[in-house]
C-alpha cells in the first residue's frame, strides 16, 4: 500500500507527534519556570517570562542526582558488557551450530523472558541480603541478568541467523577452526547486531525499577528511576526539580534514539521481541 502522502496526512502526523511529545514539552517548560509559576493560575500558561535555571542547579546541588546518574551508568554498562558477551556465545551456538536440544534451549530462553520479576524477587533478595550484597553495584548486576540475558540471547540468535551460511562453509574449507570462524568471520559481520543488542540491553538495565527499588535502598547506590521517583521536598513534591531531572534524563535518551533509531527499530522488530 505505497500511497502518496497528502496534506491531511502531514497534519495527522503533526498532531500525532505533538500528542506523543506533549508531556516532554510541558516538563521542559515547567523546568525553567520559577517555583511561583508552577502553582496557581500561572501553572497553565505554556510559557514563562522569567526563565530560570534554578531547578537544574537544585537537582545537582540539593539532591544526589549526579550520584544516581553515575550508579545507573555503572550498573547498566557492566550488565550490558557481561551479558552481551555471555549471550553472544550462546546465541552463536544456537543459531549456527548443530547440536541436539537447541530448540529446547531456545524455548527455555524465551519462557524466561516472560517471567514476572516479582516471582524471583524474594529468593534473590534474601540471598543478596545474606551474602551482604544489598546496596552494592553487584547486587543489581546479578539480578539484572534475569532480564537482560534471555533478551540478548533472543535478539542475537535472530541476528546471527541472518548471516549467510556460505561464509562458514568457506571458512571450513579453508581450514579454520570453530573458534577462528567465530572470531574472524561471524563476529565482524555480527557487530551491528551485537551493537543493537547492547543498546537495547543498556536501556532495559537503565530503566529497571523493581530490583533497584528493593535491593539498593541506600542513597549511595540508588539508580536514576528510583532516585527521581523518591525525590522529596520539605513540604511538598518538588515538581520544579522533578521536571528538571526528567529533562536531564530524557535529553541523552533523545540523542541516543535519534542516532540509533534504525538499529533500535531493527532490534525491536527482529523476532518481534519485547522491550
Amino acid at each position, binding site marked *: *500500500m505505497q500511497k502518496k*502522502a497528502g496534506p491531511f*496526512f502531514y497534519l495527522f502526523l503533526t498532531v500525532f507527534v505533538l500528542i506523543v511529545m506533549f508531556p516532554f514539552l510541558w516538563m521542559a517548560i515547567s523546568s525553567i519556570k520559577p517555583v511561583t509559576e508552577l502553582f496557581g493560575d500561572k501553572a497553565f500558561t505554556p510559557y514563562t517570562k522569567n526563565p530560570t535555571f534554578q531547578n537544574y542547579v537544585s537537582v545537582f546541588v540539593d539532591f544526589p542526582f549526579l550520584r544516581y546518574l553515575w550508579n545507573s551508568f555503572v550498573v547498566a554498562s557492566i550488565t550490558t558488557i557481561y551479558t552481551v558477551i555471555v549471550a553472544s556465545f550462546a546465541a552463536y551456538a544456537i543459531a549456527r551450530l548443530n547440536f541436539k536440544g537447541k530448540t529446547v534451549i531456545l524455548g*527455555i530462553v524465551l*519462557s524466561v523472558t516472560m517471567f514476572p520479576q516479582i516471582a524471583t524477587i524474594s529468593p534473590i533478595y534474601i540471598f543478596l541480603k545474606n551474602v551482604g550484597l544489598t546496596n552494592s553495584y553487584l547486587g543489581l548486576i546479578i539480578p539484572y541478568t534475569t532480564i537482560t540475558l534471555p533478551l540478548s540471547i533472543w535478539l542475537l540468535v535472530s541476528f546471527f541467523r541472518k548471516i549467510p551460511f556460505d*561464509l562458514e562453509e568457506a571458512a571450513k574449507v579453508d581450514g579454520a577452526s570453530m573458534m577462528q570462524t567465530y572470531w574472524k568471520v561471524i563476529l565482524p559481520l555480527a557487530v551491528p547486531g551485537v551493537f543493537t543488542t547492547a543498546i537495547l540491553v543498556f536501556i532495559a538495565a537503565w530503566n529497571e525499577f523493581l530490583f533497584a527499588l*528493593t535491593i539498593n535502598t541506600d542513597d549511595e547506590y540508588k539508580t536514576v528511576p528510583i532516585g527521581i521517583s523518591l525525590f522529596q521536598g520539605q513540604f511538598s513534591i518538588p515538581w520544579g526539580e522533578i521536571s528538571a531531572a526528567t529533562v536531564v534524563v*530524557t535529553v541523552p535518551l533523545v540523542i541516543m534514539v535519534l542516532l540509533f533509531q534504525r538499529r533500535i527499530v531493527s532490534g525491536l522488530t527482529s523476532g518481534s521481541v519485547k522491550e
Partner: protein
Amino acid sequence: MKNQALNIDNNPENKDVRVVTKKSKKNKGKWKRSESTYGYLLVAPALLLILMIAIWPVLQSFYYSLFDLRLNNPTKSEVHLSYNIDLDRYLNNFPFLLGGIDNEIRSGNAPEQLEKIKQKLTEIDQKVQDSKGIKTQYDKVNEKLTNFEQIDQKLSVAKLDKDTAQSVLKEVNEVNEELGKVASTMKLSQEKKLLGLSAGLGDSIIKPNFIGFKHYQDNLSERRMWNALGNTVLFSVISVAVELVLGLAIALLINKVFFGRGLIRASILIPWAIPTAVSALMWKFLYDGQNGIVAKLFEDIGLVDSMSKLLTTDTGAMFSVIFADVWKTTPYMALLLLAGLQTIPSSLYEAASIDGAGKWRQFISITLPLLKSSLLVALLFRTLDAFRVFDLIYVLTGGGPANSTETISILAYKVMFSQTNFGEGSALSVIIFICVAIISMLFIKLLGKDLLNDSSEK
C-alpha cells in the same frame, strides 16, 4: 551474499589449493564431531546463569511460599523444617532464671514451690544437653557467652528432635504457669524479671514454620487478592485492547512513503525508551489535582467534573493509569505492527483491487491474516508486560486510592517489603507466575510453532 563467500575462497592469500583440500577433509570430520561439543560448551555459561538467576529463584519462591516466613521475626526469618534451639538465646536466659530463683529461695520467698520449679528447670536443661549432638555446641556457646564473644547464627542454632523439643516446650510452659501462680500468691523481690526470663525461655525453641498450602488458601479466600487480580485483569485487558486498536490504526496510516519518517520513528521511540518510573512521575505532575495541565484539559472537555477527581476517585485513578500506559506503549505497538505490515507484498493489494475488493475487504482478507503472527507476538508480550505492571502504578498512584489501582504485583511487593511477610508474598508471586504461564501458553497455542521458528533448519 554468495559473492562474498566466493571471495573468501578465492582470496589469493589463502594457502596452496592441495593443502586446503587435504586439510578440509580432515577438518570436516573434526567439525562434525566437535560441533555439538562446542555447541554445548558455548551455551553452557548462559544456560547456567539462567538456571541460577531465573529458574532456581522461581522454584525457591514456591518453596518459601510453603513457610510462615517473616523477616522481622527472628524465629521465623528462615525456613525451618524441624525443631531447632537458639542456644545463644537459651543460654542468655536459663542461667539467669535459675540464679534468680536461687536468690528468691535464699531470701525465703516461697522456697518450697520454687525449689520444685528449680528441680524442673534443671531437668529441662539436662534434657536439652542430653539431646543428640548438642553438647559440644552447647558448651562452645556457653564458653563464648562467658567471654562476652560474638556468636554467629550458625553456631547458635542447633537441631532438636521433635519429641525433646515438644516435651521441653510443654515443661517450660508448666514452669511459666507455676511461676505465675507463685508470683500471684507471694511477693517476689524480682517478680518481673523472673517472669520475663521464663517466658523468654520458650522463645529459644524455634518451631518449624512449614505450613503447606495455607498461604494459598488464605490468599484465595481473601478479598484483597481478588480485588488486586481483578484490577490487574481490568488494566491489562483495557490497556492492551486500546493499544492494539490505536497501534494498528497508526501503523496502517503511516505505512507509506513520506517525508520525515525518521522524525516519526524517533518520536515513537522516545516514550518507549524513557524509564517507566520517569514517565509515571511526569504523568503524576500532569494529572495533579491543582496544577496539572492534563487534568485541567480533561476538566475543560468535560471528561471529569473536577480536576481533583482524576487521582482521588476509583475510576479516575484507573483511567489515569491506563491512559498513561496507552501513551507510553501505543507507539511501540504501532512500530511492531508496522514492521509486520511492511512484509506484506503490495502486489497482493493490487491484485485485490483489480478484482474489485474494497478497502475494508482488503483489510479483512489480506492484512489481518498476513499480520496474524506479528499481531499475536505483539499481543503476547504486551499482555504479559501489562499483567506484571509495577513501576507505573507504584509511582503514579501507589495502588490507591483505597487499593482501587492495586495490581497483584503491587500487592505482592507490599506484602513482602512493607509487611516483611515473605512467605505470603512468595505465595502471591507464585500465583502471578502461574497466571503468566497460563497466558503465555494460550498465546503460544494460538501462535503454534511460529515463535520458535528456526530458519537455520533448512
